[in-house]
């Protein structure tokens, strides 16, 4: 296997140059997919036989929840790379992903609460799924705050990496909470191992929305990462030439 790509990842300048070419594609694809999926889901799908029209919240609630957990797993991966190989870019990624993940976690909790009111008759219950998701938000906030509290870049990188790795224990708890405990939250709609329990006319816009949200995350993550690269490499010649 050719490992040169792995060494190239150690070079922030290489990443800055190549990611500039991805931006237009990410912008167009995420915009088109999210627009198509949401218009489809809002106006063209039939209502749910049980929940009526309130179920249309699913087209943002599920992608946001998926992202909130996936971003955390990516942060944990970046944390492991930071600790093992000391690749600077991995720590930068860990830093810029935290606020994005936190914002999608808030979106997931907020849309869940809004959906809960007409469906369960309450905004919030302390059931396992909702509580573990709230803990995920606290983990995100904790990682952001920890970095703000430590001024040395290297020390902050190490501390945030360790906290991110410890927090991974929460991810399987979120995923299996609806199976392990008797929760008010419904079971998983989409499973990799089984056929989805949704009608295809509802499933397609949902899948498009998930893909669109993932592309949108990639877009804003790359945007933030490029700026973080400029900030950390500000003493190098190429950044000075680029900025002035």
């Amino acid at each position, binding site marked *: 296997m050719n490992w040169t790509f792995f060494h190239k990842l150690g070079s922030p300048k290489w990443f800055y140059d190549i990611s500039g070419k991805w931006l237009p594609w990410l912008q167009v694809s995420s915009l088109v997919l999210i627009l198509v999926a*949401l218009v489809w889901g809002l*106006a063209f799908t039939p209502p749910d036989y049980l929940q*009526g*029209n309130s179920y249309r919240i699913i087209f943002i609630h599920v992608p946001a929840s998926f992202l909130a957990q996936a971003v955390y797993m990516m942060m944990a991966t970046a944390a492991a790379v930071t600790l093992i190989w000391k690749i600077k870019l991995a720590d930068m990624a860990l830093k810029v992903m935290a606020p994005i993940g936190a914002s999608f976690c808030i979106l997931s909790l907020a849309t869940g609460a809004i959906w809960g009111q007409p469906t369960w008759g309450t905004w919030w219950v302390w059931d396992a799924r909702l509580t573990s998701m709230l803990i995920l938000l606290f983990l995100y906030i904790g990682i952001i705050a920890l970095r703000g509290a430590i001024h040395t870049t290297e020390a902050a990188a190490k501390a945030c990496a360790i906290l991110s790795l410890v927090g991974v224990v929460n991810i399987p708890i979120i995923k299996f909470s609806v199976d392990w405990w008797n929760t008010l939250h419904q079971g998983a709609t989409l499973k990799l191992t089984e056929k989805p329990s949704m009608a295809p006319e509802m499933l397609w816009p949902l899948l498009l929305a998930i893909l669109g949200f993932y592309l949108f995350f990639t877009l804003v993550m790359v945007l933030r990462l490029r*700026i973080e690269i400029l*900030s950390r490499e500000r003493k190098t010649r190429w950044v*000075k030439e680029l*900025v002035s």
Partner: protein
Amino acid sequence: MYFDSWSGFLSMEGHGLYVWSAYAVAAVVIGYNLIAPFITKRQVVAQVRRQERLIKRKMVVNDFKVTADSGEDLEQRFAPGSTQRKHRAERQEEGPESVERSAQ
């Protein structure tokens, strides 16, 4: 299209307020994620430019030190009454006084 009319689309058979407020929160989160990088970028660019200006100023100061230490004719470089000498003289005069002030 599932709905017959715009008003039907907006009211969503009584669930309109819930659905639309959920989508409004989504719009806010998407907007935040799009705007935040550009605000940070402006701060980082300003930071790099400020650092550049500081380095340039330091280089000018260092330049002065090097020429001053290398034993050039200072009298010729800084004619009597030039600001540099004036400052130094003033500082020396101020010296004991400021020590007294801090002692009080």
